[in-house]
């Protein structure tokens, strides 16, 4: 065996799990996720498309079908990548390149409000609102955005620590602030042929309040 053979063999061992990891197979599957507004909207459009080919399905039928396929994919993917997983973990390497795979028609806008003792809430930060930009530099920084954005569909373990940090930033910047409220404003984006406006507000979620210590 020559050095060229050894190198080619080593690269094959490294590339095989990496190329498999890059395949667009489902990485997790949850039937509950198919009942979210985003999934329902996407399924509606897919069902309309399927209908043009004479394939009529209810939302439940399509969700069950996609879930079964995704569940099998996840099991297959996890089984094959199991030996490589410790290596991927310790090196932080991998192959997952989904970028805006599903553009969000129900985007979330981070809202930070504060009020003085006995006063009313005032808007201090709202993403993209130039009149409410307290701490904007930090809040739009990609790593911080990544933390709260991962909570926009389903609140996770980092939401409360994030709220505490954001409230601390407001308390430090404004000595009058007594209470801070952080939440998401749920928006709905329309295509030009769907409605007269680009966006409208459809409620809030995840509200948390912090008082000055």
């Amino acid at each position, binding site marked *: 065996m020559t050095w*060229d053979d050894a190198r080619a063999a080593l690269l094959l061992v490294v590339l095989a799990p990496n190329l498999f990891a890059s395949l667009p197979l489902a990485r997790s599957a949850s039937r509950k996720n198919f009942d979210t507004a985003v999934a329902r909207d996407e399924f509606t459009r897919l069902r309309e498309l399927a209908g043009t080919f004479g394939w009529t399905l209810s939302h439940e039928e399509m969700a069950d079908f996609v879930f079964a396929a995704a569940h099998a994919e996840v099991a297959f993917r996890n089984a094959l990548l199991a030996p490589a997983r410790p290596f991927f973990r*310790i090196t932080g390497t991998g192959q997952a*390149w989904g970028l805006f795979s599903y553009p969000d028609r129900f985007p979330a806008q981070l809202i930070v409000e504060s009020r003085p003792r006995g006063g009313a809430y005032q808007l201090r930060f709202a993403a993209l609102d130039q009149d409410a930009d307290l701490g904007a530099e930090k809040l739009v920084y990609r790593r911080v955005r990544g933390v709260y954005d991962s909570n926009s569909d389903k609140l996770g373990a980092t939401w409360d620590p994030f709220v505490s940090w954001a409230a601390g930033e407001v308390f430090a910047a404004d000595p009058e602030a007594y209470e801070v409220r952080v939440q998401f404003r749920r928006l709905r984006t329309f295509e030009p042929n769907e409605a007269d406006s680009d966006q409208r507000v459809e409620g809030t979620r995840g509200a948390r309040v912090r008082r000055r210590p």
Partner: protein
Amino acid sequence: MRGVWRTWRALWAGDEAAGVLSLIRVLIAVVLLADLVEVWRLHLIIPLWGPGDAGGMGNPAQQRVPPELYAWFGNTVAVGRGAFFVLVGSLVCLALGLLAQPAALVALLVYAQLALVLPGADRGIDMLIRNVLLLLTFVPSGRTFGLDALLFGPLDRSSSWPRRLLVLQLVVLYFTAGLQKAAVAWWPWGGFSALYLVLQDPAVARIPFESLRQVYPFTQLLTASTMAFEWGAGLVPLLYWYRHTRLRGGWLRAQFNRLEPLRPWLVLGVAMHLGIAATMHLGIFPWTVLALYPVLFHPDELRRLWRELPLGTAKRARIFAD
């Protein structure tokens, strides 16, 4: 089967003028350093990577499998801050080409630990950087355009396989990103509305695109271009193969080599990333990917491009001599 193996082996064999991986080394280190300086300037080291009781959002000690960084060295602020500065120090060494291979290994392992502390703050682009760092641990890139040249002697030639591997990385990145764009909004039957929707997401849009509907057809064109670019990445290996075997016959090979579609594909890629940088808050994403674009050129091509740059001959000769 032997033929397949011979082809596979030949794909990774051979050498070329050194320098491209050294350029990647410098560019990637500088881009990540710029991002880490931003973390330091915004006082985000502890919120992002500190322990929970000091205000760290990741709360590493409470994780099911705590990151080794905190499990081994203790759940303290000093550990989070220390890891940050070790990462910065190793990237400075990497940029200078000083002990470049160990520096890349240290940067890789520390950066991977920080990713485990707060996964939400670690994006796909950070994973791409670590993939490149892993590769750089196997490449003596500091011996060209780096201080390792003074310590261990300069290298004029280097193996071709690391550059080819990075070409494959870019192809996989773009092509699988295209494959995963399964939402109807990316396709003709969804009206190519994807970018129109993305640009109105307050989490990523750089400015309020309040009158976007007036240029809706333009956003549709950009959506279609993005899909063409990403799916087109699947053809890139074939284009390189046709170029490599240009003396063989065949109408398709001749047409591809005559039209050189790699050039417009590259121009589209650069335009796409500059467009992303101008319209979205995606941080170092566009700059990191663009930093890898030199691998798409053979070193001889880069030298030819360099010669065609409008610089004084004397200045160019001086830079090459350095």
